[in-house]
């Protein structure tokens, strides 16, 4: 039985796709057979961030509509053999996704994989609600910024009421806070909400803090999940997140501004 993780946020552009690619790669590199699914039908981007955009033949909607089987649509990652990508379609409309169709796909994948990572689109419409419907765990990606925090709280409401677990009166979805684009320097001068602030407001379990990092853009430019950039702060922070999720005790890093002048000039 696979464990299904939804990477969600409500607000767009906060780092869901970056996170999905990173943690899927991280789980796979730890030896867990993992598939990452792009639910952003119409705006697919996961394939680009994963660097497999030229290998897309069939997509999620093809499988739902019976035009391809799941094996034909899965793309095996070239860097890690435990990792597969199920891309979203670029052209079709969101209505092509159905609860039954997604349920059937997840059921099939569940036999072959240990983790199913669902990259949710922004908003609270069909793609987003379907991505979270079948989830066991939710990574709520939040930026330390008012509208992102508010939208994360809205997602908590939906996770608690509109999921399969909620409908069946099962144990609720486990919610984890992932604070992304954190800048300790700006927190220090009072320009940015701190980890403690966000945790206090949302009262969620903190899975990790990912620092603002220029490496994120350059690695997505290259189609390399940031977790593979082991020299970058963000890559290391994602590695910590995966380890923590798997139950290891890892202290939080990158929360305090203790870089020296040189680090500040050359780090990132």
């Amino acid at each position, binding site marked *: 039985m696979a464990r299904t993780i939804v990477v969600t946020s409500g607000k767009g552009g906060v780092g869901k796709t970056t996170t999905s690619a990173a943690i899927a790669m991280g789980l796979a590199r730890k030896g867990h057979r993992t598939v990452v699914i792009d639910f952003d039908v119409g705006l697919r981007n996961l394939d680009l961030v994963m660097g497999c955009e030229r290998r897309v033949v069939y997509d999620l909607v093809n499988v739902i509509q019976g035009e391809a089987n799941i094996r034909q649509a899965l793309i095996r990652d070239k860097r890690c053999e435990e990792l597969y990508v199920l891309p979203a379609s670029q052209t079709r409309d969101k209505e092509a996704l159905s609860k039954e169709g997604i349920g059937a796909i997840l059921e099939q994948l569940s036999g072959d994989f240990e983790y199913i990572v669902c990259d949710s689109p922004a908003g609270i419409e069909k793609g987003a609600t379907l991505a979270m419907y079948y989830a066991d765990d939710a990574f709520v990606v939040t930026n330390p910024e008012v509208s992102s925090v508010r939208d994360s*709280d809205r997602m908590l409401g939906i996770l608690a009421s509109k999921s399969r677990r909620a409908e069946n009166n099962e144990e609720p979805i486990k919610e984890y806070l992932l604070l992304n684009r954190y800048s300790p320097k700006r927190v220090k001068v*009072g*320009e940015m909400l*701190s980890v403690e*602030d966000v945790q206090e*407001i949302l009262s969620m379990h903190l899975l990790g803090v990912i620092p603002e990092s220029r490496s994120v853009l350059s690695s997505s430019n290259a189609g390399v999940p940031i977790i593979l950039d082991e020299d970058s702060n963000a890559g290391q922070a994602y590695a910590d997140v995966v380890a923590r999720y798997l139950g290891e005790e890892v202290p939080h890093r990158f929360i305090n501004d203790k870089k020296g002048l040189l680090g500040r000039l050359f780090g990132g």
Partner: protein
Amino acid sequence: MGLLDYFRASRRNSAAVAKDRLQILIAHERAERNSPSYLPLLQNELLAVVRKYVHVDHDAISVSLEQSDNQEILELNIVLPENGQAEHAHQR
């Protein structure tokens, strides 16, 4: 306090302001989310009744349910217009 200090101080506060605003807003939105589904209906019907007698705006009535450990308090808030009395007399 120099101008520079003023900007520094207000910038230093902006995260605190954000936190306060979010705490209030989110508490409000959570209460709304967790309120029973009949509340909006109750609110509309109450509004209709009040409007028979007083001209009030659509948003003049709020109904909320406060929950504490061992009791629930249904709070009904009606804001009457300044000239509510006059309108009332007029209608008769």
